[in-house]
Structure formats: structure tokens, C-alpha cells
């Protein structure tokens, strides 16, 4: 069984239909650790030791967050800046994360078609996530294909519930090694592993 850690970041969960449903769907799933960063550190004062211990105890680290301005909410950056210490995560003696996997679980407002050269955002999501995949590489981790929920602006509540259920399935399969990280490294998006349409509409 793979040990999965979800580092969740949403500064205004009260307003987010999608993430509320995602959290509801994965609530109580065994063998998955849920770490709510804004709830733990409302003043952005990250407990580095605690975060590092969490990382050490897990194999697959998923950063779940909205895709704000082609990136993550501020606390994720703060978390990276403080927790991924030199000598621990990277550098000559920084081997704590060796052999682990990192990925993003993202909700994006636009449809997938927006993330194409002809689209509004011009680049695919995977390219915007370059800082994360390279961070993983520098920290001796492998970056897995990210999971993207597109078009959330237009989803109605049923769509959202469906997406949440898919997310739960995905996590369970990851946990039970039905989807292996090795397989995910070969994909571009985790969505493909479930053979699900990545876009509901």
C-alpha cells in the first residue's frame, strides 16, 4: 500500500463548491493523510518540523489546490520555501525525499480547450506546472502526472459531485497500488489513468 499525503490549500474554502465536494468525497478514506495547510497555519507560520515529518512518513505527496493565476495559493509557496530545506530536501546531504513522488491536484476555471496554443491561456496546464516538476526533480523525487479538474466555473452541482467521486476512486487506486506511480510517470495527466473524460462538458 502506498502511503498518500494530501497537502490541501484553499484560502476561501467557504466559497469553493468544487473543493468542498472533493473534501467531502475523500473524507474518511483509510490510508490517506489529509493535511489542511490554511487550517493549520492561518498566519502562514509553517511548522517546518511537523511538515517534514509528514513528508518522511509518506510515499506520494499530492498538492491539492485551486489553479490561482496559473499556480497555487500563497501558502503552498510558503510551504515549499520553508519546508524543502537545503541539506534536507536537496543539496549533497539532502536525501530525505529520495524515491518519493510529487504531484498536483488542481481545479481550473476554464475548460481544457483554453489551455492550448489557440486558447485563452495559450499553454497546457502541465507547462504551467514546470516549477513543481522541477522542484520534485531537485529534491530527488519523481513528478507524477497532475490531476486536473477543468471548467469548474461552468459545472453544476451534479458535475461537481461526479468529479469528486472520480477523485475518490483515483486516490483509492493509488493507495492500493492499482495505479502505480511508475505508470503515472509515463502519462501527461493523471486523468488518463482512470480512462475518464477529463472534461465533463
Amino acid at each position, binding site marked *: 500500500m502506498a502511503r498518500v499525503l494530501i497537502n490541501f490549500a484553499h*484560502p*476561501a*474554502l*467557504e*466559497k*469553493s463548491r468544487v473543493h468542498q465536494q472533493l473534501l467531502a468525497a475523500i473524507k474518511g478514506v483509510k490510508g490517506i493523510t489529509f493535511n489542511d495547510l*490554511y*487550517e*493549520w497555519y*492561518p*498566519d502562514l507560520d509553517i511548522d517546518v518540523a511537523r511538515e517534514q515529518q509528514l513528508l518522511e512518513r509518506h510515499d506520494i505527496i499530492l498538492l491539492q489546490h*485551486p489553479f*490561482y493565476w496559473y499556480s497555487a*495559493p500563497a501558502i503552498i509557496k510558503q510551504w515549499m520555501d520553508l519546508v524543502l530545506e537545503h541539506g534536507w530536501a536537496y543539496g549533497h546531504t539532502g536525501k530525505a525525499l529520495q524515491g518519493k513522488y510529487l504531484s498536483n491536484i488542481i481545479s481550473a*476555471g476554464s475548460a481544457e480547450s483554453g489551455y492550448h496554443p489557440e486558447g485563452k491561456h495559450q499553454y497546457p496546464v502541465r507547462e504551467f506546472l514546470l516549477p513543481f516538476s522541477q522542484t520534485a526533480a531537485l529534491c530527488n523525487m519523481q513528478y507524477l502526472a497532475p490531476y486536473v479538474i477543468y471548467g469548474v*466555473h*461552468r459545472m453544476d452541482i451534479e458535475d461537481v459531485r461526479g468529479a469528486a467521486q472520480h477523485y475518490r476512486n483515483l486516490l483509492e487506486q493509488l493507495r492500493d497500488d492499482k495505479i502505480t506511480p511508475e505508470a503515472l510517470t509515463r502519462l501527461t495527466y493523471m486523468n488518463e489513468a482512470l480512462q475518464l473524460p477529463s472534461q465533463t462538458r
Partner: protein
Amino acid sequence: MNQHSLLFQSMVYLAAAIVFVPLAKKMGLGAVLGYLIAGVIIGPSVMGFIGKEGEDIMHFAEFGVVMMLFLIGMELEPTLLWRLRTSILGLGGLQVLGSAAAIAGLAYWLGQPFNASLALGMILSLSSTAIVLQTLNEKGWMQTAAGQSAFSVLLFQDIAVIPMLAIFPLLANGAASTADLHEPSLRDNLPAWGQTLVVLGAVAAIVVAGRYLVNPLMRIIARTRVRELFTATALLMVVAIAVLMNLVGLSSALGAFLGGVVLANSEYRHELESDIEPFKGLLLGLFFIAVGASIDFSLIKEEPLLIFGLVLGLMVIKGVVLTILGKIFKLSTDQNLLFAFALADIGEFAFVLLAFSNQVRLIDGRLSAMLTAIVAISMALTPLIMLLYEKVIQPRFTRQIPHGDERSSDEIHEKNPVIIAGFGRFGSMTGRFLRANGIKCTILDMDSDRVDALHNLGIKVYYGDASRYDLLVAAGAADAKLLIVATDQSEQTRQIVELAQKYFPHLQLLVRAQQVEDTFELMDQGVLHIYRETVDTSLRMGADALRMLGVRAYHSERAARTFFRQDERTLKGLSAMRDDKKQYLVSMRERIEEMEKLIASDRIKTWLDEGQGWDASSIRDEVRGEAES
């Protein structure tokens, strides 16, 4: 009217001081010269308000010098004294030896007998502790290399007076026995080893009393909460030391200095300082007035050339010796000149020593009178010479000051950037926090028990009422950057703020306010940084309550901050309204009204409803709108 009544005398002295000191200050001459001029004017030579009794007054006023040395001692921690040992012994010793030898040579050459020449050399080698230190302090030169060197030399001179008093009778070839020369002391009928023992015993008594007796005593006094008892205790301390020293035949100035050094680490130091300071100032002023009055102008009129020639000659000799020493001890040119100019005068101890050598018939009366005039003139000239230095010589060097001789300013006593007034439950938290972050604070508190407890923990706390100007000065308000006012009496807080704004406008004020009305008062006083004492805790509690009710932590936190900002704004608005209405007396009913206004303005607009960052609802509407159209 009885011209010689005590009250009349006091009136003359005080009036003279009040008229001439501000005048002298205004003309840039300094307070010391002001006092001297006042003395000359009211003295026998001009107005004749005071006559022969001027000398008695001088003896009385010499006590000002004792107090000054007590205060100087208190500024000096023993470790610092130890650090200055080279300059005290080396520079001071060489100065006294060099000047004494040169002047003795001159006197011998002018036809004085050998022994008298030696005595004259010693007498005239001394400089005026009172005038020099006063002037250096006044001009703010105490911390410069020259100031420090001058201080060391003066310290050595004060100590050197004691062996001089012992040597003079020997030089007089037993013309008179030592016993009837000075006040009878315990020492006189003892064998040599007994004398040594008595002296050592007296010194030990001062050290032991200072270490173990003063703090408990001050604690008892503090508990009585009778302010004047402090002043009484402080005075008693200095007087008792002086009496003890006289009893064993030592210089009271030296004893007071020692007592001061012992008390340098006491938490009551600032309190003692501010209690004695005014007495010291007045007595020194009196002393200078007496010096001015004692100048015998008829003698000067008789032999003006001889007297002024001697004054000039003596000061030049001393100046040259000092300059050479300054060079040896590596003072830069401008500092060396200041050093030489400051110490070229002849000091007040000369009066004492002259009277003494007259008694032992070492020097004859006429010469003694002439020398008294010379000493007085040279003392009167010192502030003028310093003025000359300040106006003419120093400006030529100002360009070199950057790589000049400003030694680190904590040479004499550490100056902390932060003063905390009130170290109760509020101020102590701030103080601990600053301390934890390596910020040095001078702490003033009114609760003697707390002062003790903290002192035992090794924290520097001083007992005292921070709403007193002199205590703030003693705490280093002139050099501090921040004044944190955390007292729990709003009246006291108000007074401290007023005082600080008036006399230390450079200080940034951070002020604790208790009630809403206090906040308004402080706003009216123009305080920018006001800390209502329970606001942060109450809101933190409120935020935690929100969290426990299931509200997200981040939202609770931001909500508390939003509320805080809104509340501050409302308060400012209300404060302005109060000003308009000129309502300074707020009745109970009005207080409730104010509270109502505050509550009415609390309809909090949360950032979750208002903000369109972070999952904006508007973009959802917009996107859907596009899809429909």
C-alpha cells in the same frame, strides 16, 4: 533688615544665580561662568552683598564636589573603572608628577625655598574637577577620547590629594604638629598599623553597607510611599560617608566616589541619582559663586602684571605637560588640545591645600592670598578657554571628525535604545519579548517588590517614577530611541507622555491605553502609537471562538484583523467628533453612547462576501453569461 540673615543670603545667592546663569547661557558662556560672574558681582569687590563669609560658604559648598563625585561614582561600574586603570594611573600619575615637577622648578627658580616649591608644585598641578566635568558634561564632550582622558586624570588628582595632605607637614619640617592641623580624627592617637586598619575598616564599611544595606533599606523606604524619604535617604547616605571619611581622616570626596561605585549596580541607582542631582547642582553653583566672590580684586589691582603673568605662565606650563602626555597616550591633535585646554586650570583643591599649607607655615600668608586669586582667576578662565576651543579650534578639525576620536559611546555607561516605563503584567511581556530578541531595555518601575524580584532574576530594573523629568534623564532618555509607556495608572501615563513630548521630542512613544477614554486622551495628546491593552487578546479569543464553531481558521484570523482595523478607524472618527464638541469630560451615559456607536459600526463586511479575489463569484457569472449568449 538684617543683611546677614540666612533668608536674605539665600535670596541673594539664588537671585544672582537666576539672573546670571541664564544670561551666561544665552551668551554661550556656559553655566559655570555664569555662577562665577554672579559671585564676582555680589562679592565684596562689586556690590558687596557678601563679604568675608564667602569663604565659609565655599567650605560648605565644597560638599557639592562630594556629591558630584558620588554621582560620578554611580555612573562607573567597577569593571569600567578597572578598564580605565591605565589611563587613571598612567595618564593621571604622569600629569601630576610632570606638572608638579615643572611648577616646583619654576617656583624654586623664582626664589622660593625648596620645600615650599615642592608644595606649590603639588598644589598647582591639580585641576578643577567641578568646573571641568561640569563644562565637559554641558558641552557633551564627556564621551570623547579627550573627555575620558580628562576624567581619568581628574580622578587620579582627587585621590592624590590625600597623600599630599600627609606630606605637607613633613615638608614643613615639623614646624607644627599634624594633630592640630586638621580636624581631629580617630586616626591621630593610633600607631601606624592601627591607622591603616582604621582606614581599611572605613573603606570596607562603605563597600559592605553599599552592597548589603542600601537595597534592603531602600526597599523599606519605598514601601512607605513617602517620596521625600527617598531624598532624605540619599542625602543621608552621602553625608554619612563624608562624616565617616572625616572621622578617619580621609577625603570625603574620595569616600563618596567609592560609595557611588559600590552603588553603581543597585537597582535604586537612577532614583538616588535623580534625588541627589538637584542638590549637587545647587551646591556646585554655590561653590562657583563663592569662588567668584573670593577673588581679591585689590590684590590684583596692586600687582596685575605679576598675577596675570603667573596665571598665564602656570596654565601654559600645565598645558604643555598635558599636550606631551596626550601625544604619548595617542590622542589625535584636536582631542589632545581639548584635553590640554580643559585641564590647564588650577582646581578647587588648591584652596584647601593652600589653607592647609598656610597653617603648617609652609607658605606665607601674602603668597597664599595671591595664589588664591590666581587659582580663582584660572578657574574663571576655564569656561572661557573651553569656549575658545569650541568656537575657534574645534571648527578647524570638524572635517576630520568621521575618522576622529568618538570612542564607542558606552564607555561611561551603557545607553539602551529602549526605555520601558512600567514593568507590570503588560510592560513585562513587551520587555521580555524585546529582551528575547537581543534588545537592551532600561526598565523603570514603581513597585519595589517587583523591582527586587526582577533584579534577582538578573534583569536590569530601576525603581522610580517615570513621570519625573530627572528620572527620565537618568534613565538615558536623551539618547534612547523608544519610550514604551506601559504604566497602569492613566494619569501617570498622561504625565509621562506630556513630559517626553516636551523635553525629548526625538523619542518615539509607544503607549498603553486602558480605557476607551484613555485612548481618546492619548489621541488628543498626539500620540501615534496607542495600544489598547486588551484588544488583541479579546480578538484572539473571539477568533478562537469562531474556529470552535466550525469557521475556517484562516477566515477567523482575517475576520479578527478586519474587525480590529475597523474598530481603530471608528475610534479615530469618534475622537475627531469629540474634539469638535469639545467634550473632555465624558459622563457615564456618554460612555455608553460611545459603546453603542462602536457596536453599531460593527456590521462586519467580511472579505469572503466582498472580495473578488480567490474564487470570485463574478467570474463564474461572467463565464456562464458568455455561454448563454
